[in-house]
């Protein structure tokens, strides 16, 4: 008896977003990335078009990372603490398709640096690499509202993504995004209802829905992955079913989340039963990214170069059809 693969018919596709502006579009990027566009669930090529492969971005902090284990810091050599050199290494040596610059130093509990510093770092990183830039705040609302507008302005016309707009703090960043021609990352706490609400709030300010990327704040593998996965899948199903307020591409922050898990973080002395950290750490990060890709995210933000390689190989295979 022959088996017929059941094929679901969807009415719409995920919207498409391009990051980065080349000289033709008034920017200085030498490459761009395009997210979204899928007309089916992740990697079901037999069911619908998946025009764009997921994008692997690498994260750069604007300050020396604190408490990074040796296994994570070692591949970067001496560039940690120098965001421009760090970004350059990620692109040239490790194949990052985009850079996510996190303005960690602005946090009051960190170095409490100001908007001038943020603008300066953004300019340096833009000068050092040609890939698109994702600019991410420090997570402190008051501070982000000071720092992000200046960082945004420093990157005006480069078609970056700015993160993040949240239900209780979205106005300043949305205004900056509108003013400087960027895309916006909307964040929700693993909650599809709030994700939709934030998208409504920012589009009410005049930001069109095709300029939004959705982000569900989440934990790493083993720490709420199942919940995050099902929320992402539900968002994708809603998008394919025609819900324009949930049809944006999705993003996952993987590096910082994966390396927060004890399975990745524990030094060899404590985690001997799991094997050497230099191996299990990157694997933990790669597997976390892989899970999110199957949940429907269109870009992953990664830390460890070996994890990046593993994920890129996985994407190569998943995109074959």
């Amino acid at each position, binding site marked *: 008896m022959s088996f017929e693969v059941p094929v679901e018919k969807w009415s719409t596709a995920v919207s498409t977003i391009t990051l980065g502006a080349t000289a033709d579009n008034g920017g200085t990027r030498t490459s761009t990335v395009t997210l979204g566009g899928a007309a089916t669930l992740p990697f079901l090529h037999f069911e619908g078009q998946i025009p764009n492969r997921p994008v692997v971005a690498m994260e750069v902090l604007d300050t020396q990372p604190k408490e990074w284990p040796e296994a994570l810091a070692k591949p970067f050599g001496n560039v940690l603490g120098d965001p421009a050199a760090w970004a350059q290494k990620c692109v040239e040596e490790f194949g990052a398709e985009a850079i996510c610059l996190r303005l960690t130093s602005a946090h009051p509990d960190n170095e409490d640096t100001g908007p001038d510093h943020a603008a300066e770092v953004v300019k340096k990183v833009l000068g050092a690499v040609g890939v698109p830039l994702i600019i991410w705040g420090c997570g402190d609302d008051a501070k982000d509202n000071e720092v992000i507008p200046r960082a945004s302005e420093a990157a005006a016309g480069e078609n970056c993504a700015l993160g993040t707009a949240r239900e209780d703090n979205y106005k300043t960043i949305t205004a900056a995004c509108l003013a400087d021609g960027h895309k916006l990352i909307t964040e929700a706490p693993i909650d*599809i*209802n*709030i994700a*939709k*609400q934030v998208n*409504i*709030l920012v*589009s*009410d300010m005049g930001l069109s*829905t095709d300029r939004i990327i959705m982000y569900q704040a989440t934990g790493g593998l083993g720490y709420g992955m199942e919940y995050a996965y099902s929320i992402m899948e*539900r968002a994708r199903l*809603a998008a394919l079913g*025609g*819900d*324009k*307020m*949930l049809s944006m591409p999705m993003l996952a922050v993987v590096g910082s989340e994966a390396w927060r898990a004890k399975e990745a973080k524990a030094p060899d002395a404590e985690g001997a039963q799991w094997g050497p950290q230099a191996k299990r750490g990157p694997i933990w990060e790669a597997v976390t990214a892989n899970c999110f890709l199957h949940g429907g995210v269109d870009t992953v933000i990664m830390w460890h170069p070996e994890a990046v390689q593993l994920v890129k190989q996985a994407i190569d295979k998943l995109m074959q059809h």
Partner: protein
Amino acid sequence: MYVIGERINGMFKDVRQAIQAQDKGIIQDLAKKQLAGGAHCLDVNVGPASDDPVSTVQWLVETIREVTDAPLAIDTTKHDVMATGIKAAGKGSVINSTTGQQEKLDVLLPLAAENDASLIALTIDEKGIPRDANGRVEIALRVVAGAMEHGISPDRIYVDGVIIPVSADQMTPTHVLNTISQCKMLADPPPKTILGLSNVSQGAVYRELINRTYMVMALAHGLDAAILDPMDTELMDALITAELLLNRNVYCADFLKAYRASAA
């Protein structure tokens, strides 16, 4: 739910006057307002306003096409008017409507197949409107079987259980609700179900309240489509909310706004 806007109908005074004066502005304004209100498709009914309904339907469709590509439901009992309207409206249009009478099916099923159109089927036959849901479902089944013979998938058939004003017969609303539920079991994929909503309140007081309440009840029974006035904001709010409570849309605090933004 698939919303068919009912307002471009020669029975309404403004439309009748627009047809007589060949005033495009009124028709185009109604088209745009209904779409903005949440309509997916627009009903087009010449009504009693014209001596030459064939050229009037052509004019109406062309007039609407100047402002939107939305699907149109051509609403007439006259075959020449239907054929002209459906051809002018293009693919994805809706034939409104056939009954279960064989001579009608023999003409309208081929027209639907040729023009890639959907078909609204009133559950009426030679004997009139059946008394209860069973008779209605029987007619629906006959139409679905006929459609399949013409290569029309059952989900392109919209079964209309024919609502009679509640002021005339208080049992019909229940019979029609049962018809909606039972149609789901007729075929795979099942035919869609539709209501000409405003009929339920003809001749009654509190018409809008009756329409709105019945709409929500029908949605809970699985209704797929309705012909209604999408400019009635309270009706549309009730519809959107009912769909939310039936888990057909994801909740968010501004869900009314989200629905309208998604429909636009």
